[in-house]
């Protein structure tokens, strides 16, 4: 204490002296890079003071300072410059790129690391890549952005849940979703909302995409082993925006408006066509025997959705404090009638240097989302589904203009106009931390306390016309997590060449969920809204569950002169989710690397080869997504067990006290290169990942008490492939620059063994994922297994299929199913081109998927000529006489009834390339802004999303991007996916 006082006195003295003698003056100048291009946003700070500014868009700055003061010029990716103010009042600065920008720091698990000596395989997605992509949740932002990351959007419905796979499907029965961690808090991502025909809403929607500074995707075991039991599907670390200490305060206001419309829809018959078809097929004798109405349902359930977004933020810092305060208001309308989403979100991130040994901080988000939902996929209350299936002579209104009930295929226009179907979520995600420097140089202790509290309220009310008697449903679900992490970090260099980077810690995480559901029917009036007014209570339920996870972890890295690098990590996790005999599991990794380009013998290559680094890693990680009590036997009560007012019990599952961790062993080889001062950067990684002790709900014959499966550790699966990313600055001269980022993830999945699983008639073991799909030993986990459709025989007019032996037949059986495709793509990726010319910027971003098959189950209905739903216009192509090459068998053919049975008739090649984002922006130059004194910058921009989709001819009317499950099995299937929306967005961003 005494010493500190002395220091302060000295400091005060110096200041006084300075004030007394310094001669104040205004220094101006221009900051440029090595190419002479102006650098906007460079921090110019008078060293040792709060006095600072930033360069404007032309690289100019102006600062009041004094002779003898030291100005520091700093900018990310450049070597900081210090210049002492002399007599001149003009100081122009040329910044040099920081040693190939390799000292860039990247976020890793429990810390940050220097990119140059990084051994872990990870992909970083920066804020520039995230801007201008209108996204509902954080997963959408990853699509096409990082090698080895596949994101499949499930539909164009607002808030729908995408599937995210990192380096392939790594599990069968456990979830295959990666772990998302926001500012150190692993998020709850269990589905809480109702499925409504499709699937639950994206549980990560509450993370406001506008708050995200960067995302880091951890891919290999070296990166994920410290997440132990949750690492095997990969981990996505989300870092939210912060203010830096000493950074000038910047206010930013972003306003945007967008219009969205549907991309692909089926062409359905009109009333006259279907009436005529019904006569021809003999359903009725004459068109007059059918209702004479006419209505275009598919057109009536879509619209142009109009959305508005306001995003305001303030960020900056003082000497000891940095802050970010952001808020978002958005109102979105989907292109399907009745689909709307409101988002209200605030975030406050703070960091403060409390003393010279203690830093504290917090990142806190609260968000509220009100999603006015619509059904999807396999639901007759889903607008698009019922619009396709509804007979076009059925009209939504009666002769008096009132809505009518249209029966089993519901009047979706009345439903969306009248009924209530809301999901409201409130979510708090926060983390507070304190970081203390301990006695030993380089040693710090950090404690984090995080929380993720989630409250969901769902309300449904279907009124008399749509549900006779009325129907109401209300549920409240809470999910509360808290997590405490304590860690010690050691980061130090010895003799300038021995660098040590280590972290060790422990973490305890507790999640509790609770939900209450009520449901009722029998309302006297549509003016009585809630379940309390019902006469019959079909559901009254409350449930609670939870999980506990305790882990100790450590990671230590050493490098010699940033050339030879080794790192190891370990984590031991205990989880309440596993069998008593196997509650604990240990996961580990080792990695090594060599920066070849820094070797003396590479001296001659420095002018063209800026980086050559080789890395290798091997390690293990686990997967705990098996539900909370999968190892226990259960006798359960409730409605499924009760009879006639008496409480009952039913045996629902078998015990497995030996249930243990699913374990992935992953090997990764990396080649990192940079050429011509990193204008060309190529990274190629090869990986091979074997998942053993697969947690599988091993199906057993139903004759065992009707129990479907036993959750066991059996079998193994392998994913292997390459992740390639190539970043090039093609042109950087004068006013024009052009850069390209390409990433490709090549993945092959193979099921290695499934002991105890079903055996098909070829003797192969398999697990059925859906009626169309299986995980088969020796094949992909998402192998399509179907009867092959061969077409309509032009001579006979009969539809023909192939038997298992390849013979043509008109009456195939289930034994004729064979392997016909794979829902997993051969490769996925993204291609981004960024052009800048003077004040204009243009961003062209494609994402693509190649070699995957998709199954459109809905075609079994819309292409069933013998059914009584509406049909696609393709069905008009009926065989009529020998020689016809028709789509549909003849009306008299016995196969007319079986034509649409499940077969490759509904299977398509799902390869596509999509212009996901096209953005044109203009940033106003100084001349304009001078007129408006308080503005520092204005950018206007226009963005189009999903403007163009390149796909197969037989996907006319079908969106190639489909999934009706986020589970590992059954990928690439859909009933009727509402297509992705085409969105046009116009925005303006003000900086103050």
């Amino acid at each position: 204490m005494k010493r500190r006082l002395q220091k302060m006195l000295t400091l005060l003295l110096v200041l006084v002296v300075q004030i007394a003698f310094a001669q104040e003056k205004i220094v101006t100048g221009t900051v440029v890079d090595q190419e002479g291009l102006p650098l906007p946003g460079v921090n110019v700070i008078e060293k040792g003071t709060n006095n600072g500014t930033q360069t404007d868009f032309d690289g100019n700055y102006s600062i009041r300072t004094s002779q003898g003061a030291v100005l520091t010029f700093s900018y990310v990716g450049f070597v900081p410059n210090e210049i002492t103010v002399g007599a001149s009042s003009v100081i122009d600065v040329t910044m040099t790129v920081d040693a190939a920008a390799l000292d860039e720091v990247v976020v890793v698990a429990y810390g940050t690391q220097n990119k140059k000596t990084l051994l872990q395989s990870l992909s970083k997605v920066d804020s520039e890549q995230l801007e201008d992509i209108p996204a509902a949740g954080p997963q959408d932002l990853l699509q096409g952005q990082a090698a080895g990351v596949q994101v499949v959007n499930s539909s164009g419905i607002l808030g729908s849940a995408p599937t995210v796979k990192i380096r392939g499907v790594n599990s069968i029965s456990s979830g295959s979703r990666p772990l998302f961690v926001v500012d150190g808090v692993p998020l709850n991502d269990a589905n809480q909302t109702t499925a409504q025909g499709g699937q639950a809403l994206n549980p990560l929607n509450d993370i406001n995409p506008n708050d995200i500074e960067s995302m880091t995707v951890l891919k290999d075991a070296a990166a994920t082993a410290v997440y132990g039991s949750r690492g095997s599907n990969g981990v996505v670390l989300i870092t939210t925006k912060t203010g830096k200490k000493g950074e000038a305060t910047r206010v930013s206001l972003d306003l945007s408006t967008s219009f969205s419309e549907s991309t692909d829809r089926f062409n359905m018959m009109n009333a006259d066509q279907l009436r005529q078809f019904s006569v021809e097929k003999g359903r009725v004798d004459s068109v007059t025997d059918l209702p004479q109405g006419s209505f275009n349902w598919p057109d009536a359930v879509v619209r142009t959705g109009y959305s508005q977004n306001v995003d305001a933020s303030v960020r900056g810092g003082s000497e000891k404090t940095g802050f970010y305060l952001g808020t978002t208001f958005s109102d979105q309308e989907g292109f399907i009638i009745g689909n709307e989403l409101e988002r209200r979100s605030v975030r406050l991130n703070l960091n403060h240097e409390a003393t010279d040994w203690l830093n504290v901080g917090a990142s806190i988000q609260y968000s509220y989302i009100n999603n006015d939902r619509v059904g999807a996929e396999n639901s007759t209350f889903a607008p698009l589904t019922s619009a396709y299936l509804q007979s076009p002579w059925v009209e939504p209104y009666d002769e008096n203009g009132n809505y009518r009930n249209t029966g089993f295929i519901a009047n979706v226009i009345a439903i969306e106009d009248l009924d209530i179907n809301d999901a409201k979520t409130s979510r708090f995600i926060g983390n507070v931390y304190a970081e203390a420097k301990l006695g030993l140089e380089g040693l710090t202790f950090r404690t984090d306390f995080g929380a993720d509290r989630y409250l969901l309220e769902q309300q449904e009310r279907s009124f008399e016309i749509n549900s006779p008697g009325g129907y109401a449903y209300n549920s409240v679900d809470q999910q509360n997590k808290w997590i405490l992490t304590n860690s010690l970090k050691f980061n130090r260099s010895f003799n300038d060449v021995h660098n040590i980077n280590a972290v060790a810690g422990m973490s305890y995480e507790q999640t509790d969920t609770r939900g209450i559901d009520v449901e009722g029917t029998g309302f006297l009036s549509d003016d009585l809204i809630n379940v309390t007014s019902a006469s019959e209570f079909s559901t009254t339920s409350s449930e609670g569950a939870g999980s506990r996870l305790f882990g100790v972890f450590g990671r230590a890295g050493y490098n010699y002169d940033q050339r030879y690098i080794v790192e190891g990590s370990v984590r031991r996790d205990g989880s309440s989710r596993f069998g008593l005999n196997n509650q604990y599991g240990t996961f580990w990794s080792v990695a090594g690397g060599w920066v070849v380009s820094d070797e003396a013998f590479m001296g001659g290559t420095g002018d063209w080869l800026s980086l050559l680094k080789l890395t290798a890693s091997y390690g293990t990680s686990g997967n705990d997504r098996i539900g909370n009590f999968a190892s226990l036997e259960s006798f359960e009560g409730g409605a499924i067990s009760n009879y006639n007012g008496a409480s009952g019990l039913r045996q629902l599952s078998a015990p497995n006290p030996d249930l243990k961790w699913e374990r992935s062993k992953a090997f990764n080889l990396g080649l990192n290169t940079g050429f011509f001062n990193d204008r060309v950067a190529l990274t190629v990684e090869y990986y091979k990942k074997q998942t053993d002790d697969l947690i599988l709900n091993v199906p057993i014959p139903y004759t065992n008490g009707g129990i479907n499966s036993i959750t066991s550790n059996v079998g193994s699966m392998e994913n292997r492939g390459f992740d390639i990313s190539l970043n090039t600055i093609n042109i950087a001269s004068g006013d024009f620059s052009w850069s390209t980022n390409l990433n490709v993830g090549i993945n092959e999945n193979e099921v290695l063994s499934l002991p105890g699983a079903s055996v098909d008639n070829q003797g192969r073991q398999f697990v059925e994922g859906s009626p169309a799909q299986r995980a088969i030993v020796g094949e992909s986990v998402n192998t399509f297994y179907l009867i092959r459709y061969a077409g309509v025989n032009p001579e006979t007019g009969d539809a023909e299929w192939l038997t298992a032996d390849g013979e043509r037949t008109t009456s195939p059986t289930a034994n004729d199913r064979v392997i016909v495709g794979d829902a997993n793509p051969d490769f996925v990726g993204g291609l981004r081109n960024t052009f800048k010319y003077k004040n204009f910027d243009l961003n062209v971003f494609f994402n693509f998927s190649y070699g995957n098959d998709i199954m459109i189950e809905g075609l079994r209905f819309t292409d069933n000529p013998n059914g009584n739903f509406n049909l696609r216009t393709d069905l008009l192509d009926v065989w009529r006489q020998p020689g016809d090459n028709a789509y549909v068998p003849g009306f008299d053919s016995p196969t007319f009834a079986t034509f649409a049975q499940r077969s490759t008739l509904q299977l398509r090649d799902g390869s596509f390339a999509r212009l996901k984002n096209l953005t044109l922006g203009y940033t106003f130059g100084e001349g304009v802004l001078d007129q408006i004194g308080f503005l520092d910058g204005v950018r206007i921009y226009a963005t189009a999303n999903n403007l163009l989709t390149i796909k197969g001819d037989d996907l006319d009317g079908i969106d190639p991007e489909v999934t009706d499950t986020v589970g590992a099995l059954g990928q690439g299937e859909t009933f009727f996916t509402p297509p992705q929306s085409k969105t046009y967005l116009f925005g303006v961003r003000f900086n103050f």
Partner: protein
Amino acid sequence: MKIYNKLILIFLSVFVVSCDDELNLQPEDQLTLDVSFSNKETSLGVLTGAYSAAQQDDVLNGTRQAYADYMADNVDFVGSFPTFQAISQFNQLSNNTSIEAGWDDNYETIGATNLVIKYIPTVEDVAFTDEEKAIAVAEAKFLRALIYFNMANIYAQPYSITNGDTPAVPLVTEPFDAEVQFPSRATLGAVYDQVEADLLDAAAVLGDSDNSRATKGAAEGLLSRLYLYKGQYDLAAEYADNVIQNSAYSLASDYSFYNTTDSEFMFTLLNSAADGQDSGEGFSGLYNPVPDGRGDAPFTDNLIEAYGGMDTSDKRFTELTQIGNDANGDERIFTSKYPDGITNADNAPVLRITEMYLTRAESNFREGTSIGDTPLNDINELRKRAGLSELNSISSVDQILEERRKELAFEGHRRMDLLRIQLPLRRPGMPNVEKSNPGDQKTIFPIPSREIDLNENLTQNPGY
């Protein structure tokens, strides 16, 4: 600083110790097998669970009955749901998901009854008397017999053709105890033998106080049906007569007994909005017109004619039908035996005494006997209730069968009533008549391909 370090170490170590207990988190609403059979209340809860399992739509609550009707001549299937449509057109495959679900749910129910039969006798609870235990076991045996009987009839060719020698379904009589079993199919004869043994056991113990659960009358009634299907008409008549003589049951005076616990029923499964039919594909969902139901299953013209056409005075038509829109929006005749398509709270009529009159009449007629009463009197008893003129004589068994059809329509009898006497399921002029003959491959269900793939001891039915 040293003090800080020590504090942190202490903090860490305390935390590590305290976490171990936290990992042994227990579920809030689950019991184990041992606890479930540790006392009278929870063990009887497992029996209640067996009834609850039987409430699943494709066990006793209508789906299975509807499939049978889709195959036969009472119902004109107009829906478009592919798995149902396939059954109605005799082109179902072994991977038909609706058929697979039915197999699953029926074996769930069998599993629940097996638990009761094995473990209830072992429960140690002084409050649980041997007599109470015996009744619980008898109820479970009745349920098990009922489910096996229903399953055997849809997965095996009828006894009248095969004499019970072809495979039916696996006969599992032990509960699941974590050791997976791979049983092969028992013959229809063996399944019928088990059904008979269970029912005889049950009839010897059960009383008749509560027809919402298994009763002696229900056990004897089902025995009567079993003997009828096997062609053992003397036994069929005898057991039917036993029930008719049982004072607990009596022929209702009119048709208002549906969805009540009237003494017409020996066993009716009671449903409510909150606890009953579970899928919308049960009696109430499938047999009602839109918008309350799916409108999939209107009367065939042939059935309307059987009642005497639209102008008939047969109360079974005038009082038990409704006019409504079918799935296509066309106005059709539907049954009103299950009127609650909104909350699906209608009861399942499992066994009622009218069937006993019909069985006694048919069996006596075929045997030339008059156990209990004459066929003419039995039939006239039913015709009187229907508001029809009494017959003077019965010249053909067809007259009895016609009454049977009209009485029991939409209650799950028609398909077997045709097959057991070797009649085609469809009448001439109906679609797919040629595939509906007794013994035709697709008049019975395939063993679900899932089960074949998991259990190499299972054989598939021909044609799948």
